[in-house]
C-alpha cells in the first residue's frame, strides 16, 4: 500500500489504450479498412497482437496464484494454454482462414447452411464470452483492491466501463498495434521484476523454496482472512477462520497448514501420484484436454485469423503466436515459486491471485526500485484485463448485434456492446471468491466440448450434417455448461462427483465427438450437397483459385 506510482501507471496504460483506439478510429472507418490495414503489417506484429489479446488475467495473475497454492500439478495450465495454439495450428488455422468465416456462427452457416445451428452457435459464443469476461473483471477488482486499497467493485466496474466505452465508440477497429504493444508490455512487466527478484533471492542467501520444516514467515506479518478456511497450527491446534479475522505472526513463525492448499512440501513439489489418488490424475488429464482443445473455440481467438492474407500466412502467424506465448509462460511459474518464500501469508488470506502484484513489494521492500517494479507489474496486469476484455467484448457484441438484434447498424452494435459488457460486470460483483484460473479453465472446457468438435469435424470430415453438429453441441456443450453451473452455483461436492464436475472436459469432449459422429451417420442424407466445393475451398492453396 501507499505506493504512489501504481495509480499513475494504471492510468497511463488505460489512456494509451483508449488513445490509440481513438487514433485508429480516425484512420480506419470500416471493417474492411481494418482488414486491409492488417494485411499491410507483418505476421510478427499480427502475432504479437494475437498474443496480446490472448494473455489474460488468468495467464498474468492466475497461473502464479495457482502455482503458489497447488504446486507442480497446475503447471499444466500454462502448458495447455500454449499447446492450445498448436492444436489450432494443426487442425484449424489455414482451412478456417480459407473458409472466409469471420465468426463461429459464420462458419456454421457456411459449412452446413443451417440457420438453427447458427443460432445455437451464437448462444454458445455469448456464454463462453461472458464466462471468460467475468474472471477478467474479477482480476481487475482484485488487483486494484490490492495495490490501491479501493473496494473490490471499483476495479471491476472501472475496467468494464472503460472497455465497453472504448469498444462501443469503435476503438477496436485499428487496435492491432494496441494489442501488440500490450503483449510486449505484459512480457516486460513480468520479465524485468523477475531479474530483480532473482538477484534479491541470491542476496538473501538463496532461501529454500520448500524448507524441511515447512514454510515460515520471513517478517512479522498480520494477515486479514478473505476466505473461510481451516488452519492447523504447528502445535496441532485446529482453528476455523472466517473472512475479516486477523492473525498475527512473528518473523520465523512457521506457516500453519491451510485446508485446500498444498502447504506440505511434498504435495506442492511432487506430481500427484497414482494409486493414492486416481482423481488427481483424472483431473490432470481433463485439464490437459480442455486447454489443448478449448483454445480453438474461444470467440476472440478465431476473429483474429481473418486478419491474415491467406491460409499459409495464418499458419505462420499461429506458429509465431505459439513462440510468443511460450516465452511469456516461462515467467508466471517463477512468481508462484518465489511467492512461497516471500508471501506465504497469501495462503492463509486466500488471495493467492494477488501474488504477482504483491511479490515485488514483499521481496524488495518499500524502496524506490520495489515501488517502481510494483507499479510496472500492476500496469502489466491492467494491460491484460483491457486487451482480453476488449477482444472478448468485440466478439460477443458482434454476434449479439448481427444474430440477436438483427442486421447490425453502428447503433445496434453500440447497444449490443452495452449489453455484452453490462451482464458480466454484474456477474463479476458476485463471484469474487472463485479462482481466476479455475473459471477460465471452465470456459475452456465448454469451448472444447462444443466448438472444437464442430470445427475439427467440419473441416476434415465430409459426413458431418447439420443435425449431427447440433446434437453434438447440445449434448457435449450442454453437459459442460451444466458442470459450470453446478460448480459456480451448486452445493460443494466431494469425491468423484466433485472431480467430474470441476474438470468436466475428459468426459464431455469425447461425448460431444461421439454424438456428433453418430447422429451425422444416422442422418447421412442431410449432408450438404456442396460439401465437395467447400472442401476444395478450405484445403487448396489460394494460388489455385479460379
Amino acid at each position, binding site marked *: 500500500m501507499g505506493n504512489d506510482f501504481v495509480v499513475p501507471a494504471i492510468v497511463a496504460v488505460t489512456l494509451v489504450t483508449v488513445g490509440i483506439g481513438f487514433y485508429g478510429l480516425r484512420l480506419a472507418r470500416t471493417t474492411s479498412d481494418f482488414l486491409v490495414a492488417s494485411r499491410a503489417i507483418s*505476421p*510478427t506484429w499480427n*502475432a504479437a497482437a494475437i498474443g496480446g489479446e490472448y494473455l489474460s488475467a488468468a495467464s498474468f495473475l492466475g497461473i502464479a496464484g495457482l502455482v503458489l497454492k497447488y504446486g*507442480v500439478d497446475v*503447471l*499444466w495450465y*500454462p*502448458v495447455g494454454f*500454449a*499447446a492450445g*495454439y*498448436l*492444436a489450432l*495450428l*494443426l*487442425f484449424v488455422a*489455414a482451412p478456417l482462414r480459407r473458409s472466409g468465416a469471420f465468426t463461429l456462427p459464420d462458419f456454421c452457416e457456411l459449412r452446413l447452411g443451417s440457420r438453427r445451428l447458427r443460432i445455437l452457435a451464437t448462444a454458445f459464443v455469448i456464454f463462453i464470452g461472458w464466462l471468460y469476461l467475468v474472471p477478467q473483471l474479477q482480476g481487475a477488482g482484485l488487483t486494484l483492491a490490492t495495490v490501491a486499497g479501493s473496494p473490490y467493485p471499483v476495479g471491476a466496474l472501472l475496467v468494464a466501463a472503460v472497455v465497453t466505452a472504448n469498444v462501443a465508440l469503435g476503438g477496436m477497429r485499428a487496435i492491432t498495434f494496441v494489442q501488440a504493444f500490450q503483449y510486449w508490455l505484459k512480457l516486460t512487466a513480468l520479465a524485468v521484476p523477475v531479474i530483480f527478484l532473482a538477484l534479491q533471492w541470491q542476496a538473501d542467501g538463496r532461501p529454500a523454496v520448500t524448507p524441511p520444516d515447512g514454510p515460515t514467515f520471513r517478517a512479522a506479518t498480520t494477515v486479514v482472512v478473505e476466505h473461510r478456511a481451516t488452519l492447523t497450527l504447528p502445535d496441532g491446534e485446529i482453528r476455523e477462520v472466517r473472512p475479516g479475522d486477523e492473525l498475527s505472526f512473528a518473523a520465523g513463525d512457521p506457516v500453519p497448514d491451510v485446508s485446500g492448499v498444498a502447504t506440505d512440501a511434498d504435495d506442492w*513439489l*511432487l*506430481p*500427484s*501420484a*497414482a*494409486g493414492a489418488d486416481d482423481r488427481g*490424475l483424472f483431473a*490432470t*488429464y481433463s485439464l*490437459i484436454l480442455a486447454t489443448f482443445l478449448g483454445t480453438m473455440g474461444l470467440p476472440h481467438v478465431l476473429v483474429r485469423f481473418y486478419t491474415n*492474407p*491467406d491460409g*499459409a500466412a495464418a*499458419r*505462420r502467424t*499461429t*506458429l*509465431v503466436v*505459439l*513462440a*510468443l506465448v*511460450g*516465452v511469456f*509462460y*516461462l515467467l508466471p*511459474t517463477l512468481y508462484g515459486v518465489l511467492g512461497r518464500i516471500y508471501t506465504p501469508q497469501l495462503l492463509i488470506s486466500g488471495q493467492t491471485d494477488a501474488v504477482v502484484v504483491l511479490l515485488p513489494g514483499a521481496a524488495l521492500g518499500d524502496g524506490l526500485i520495489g515501488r517502481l517494479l510494483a507499479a510496472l507489474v500492476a500496469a502489466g496486469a491492467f494491460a491484460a484485463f483491457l486487451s482480453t476484455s476488449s477482444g472478448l467484448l468485440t466478439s460477443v457484441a458482434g454476434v449479439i448485434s448481427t444474430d440477436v438484434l438483427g442486421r447490425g447498424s453502428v447503433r445496434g452494435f453500440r447497444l449490443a456492446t452495452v449489453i455484452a459488457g453490462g451482464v458480466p460486470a454484474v456477474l463479476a460483483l458476485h463471484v469474487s471468491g472463485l479462482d481466476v484460473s479455475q473459471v477460465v479453465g471452465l470456459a475452456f472446457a465448454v469451448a472444447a466440448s462444443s466448438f472444437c468438435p464442430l470445427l475439427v469435424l467440419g473441416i*476434415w470430415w465430409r459426413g458431418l450434417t447439420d443435425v449431427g453438429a447440433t446434437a453434438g453441441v447440445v449434448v457435449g456443450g450442454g453437459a459442460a455448461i451444466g458442470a459450470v453451473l453446478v460448480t459456480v452455483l451448486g452445493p460443494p461436492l466431494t469425491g468423484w462427483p466433485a472431480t467430474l464436475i470441476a474438470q468436466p472436459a475428459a468426459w464431455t469432449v469425447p461425448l460431444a465427438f461421439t454424438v456428433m459422429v453418430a447422429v451425422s451417420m444416422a442422418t447421412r442424407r442431410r449432408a450438404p450437397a456442396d460439401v*465437395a*466445393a467447400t*472442401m*476444395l475451398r478450405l*484445403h*487448396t*492453396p*489460394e*494460388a*489455385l*483459385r*479460379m
Partner: protein
Amino acid sequence: MAKQLPDVGSGGAVPPPRRARIVLADITRQDSRAERTRAELAQQTQVGEALVRGLVRAQLALALRLSLVVAIGLGGLPWLFAIAPSLGRTTVAGVNLPWLLLGVASFPFLIGVGWAYVRLAERNEQDFTDLVQRPER
C-alpha cells in the same frame, strides 16, 4: 527466441491472391493441359474430387501424426510421474525434474512440433500445386 520465418519460403514465389477477371481469351492462351486439371477441380469432376480428397487426407494424416507425437511426449508425463514417483524427486541443477519438464522444456517442444508442421504442410500443398499444374497423365 521467436523463430523468424522466411517470408515466402519453400512455398515458392507464390504471389498473394488477387481478384482477377478471367476471360475466355486468357484461358486459351495458357497451357491447356494444366488448365484442364484446374477446371476439373472447379467443376468437381471425379478426377478433381480425387485430387482434393488426396490433399485433405495427406494434411489430416500429417496433423494426426504430429498430435500423436505431442500426445506421447507431453500426455505421457502425468502417467510417467504416477508410475515412477522417484522421477519426481530427481533433481537437475537443484530443480525437480517435473518442474523443468513442464515449466521450461515443454514450450520449445511445442514450438518445434509447430515448426515441423508448417514446413510439412506447405510441402504437401506444393506437391498438390505441382500435380495440378503439371498433371502426369
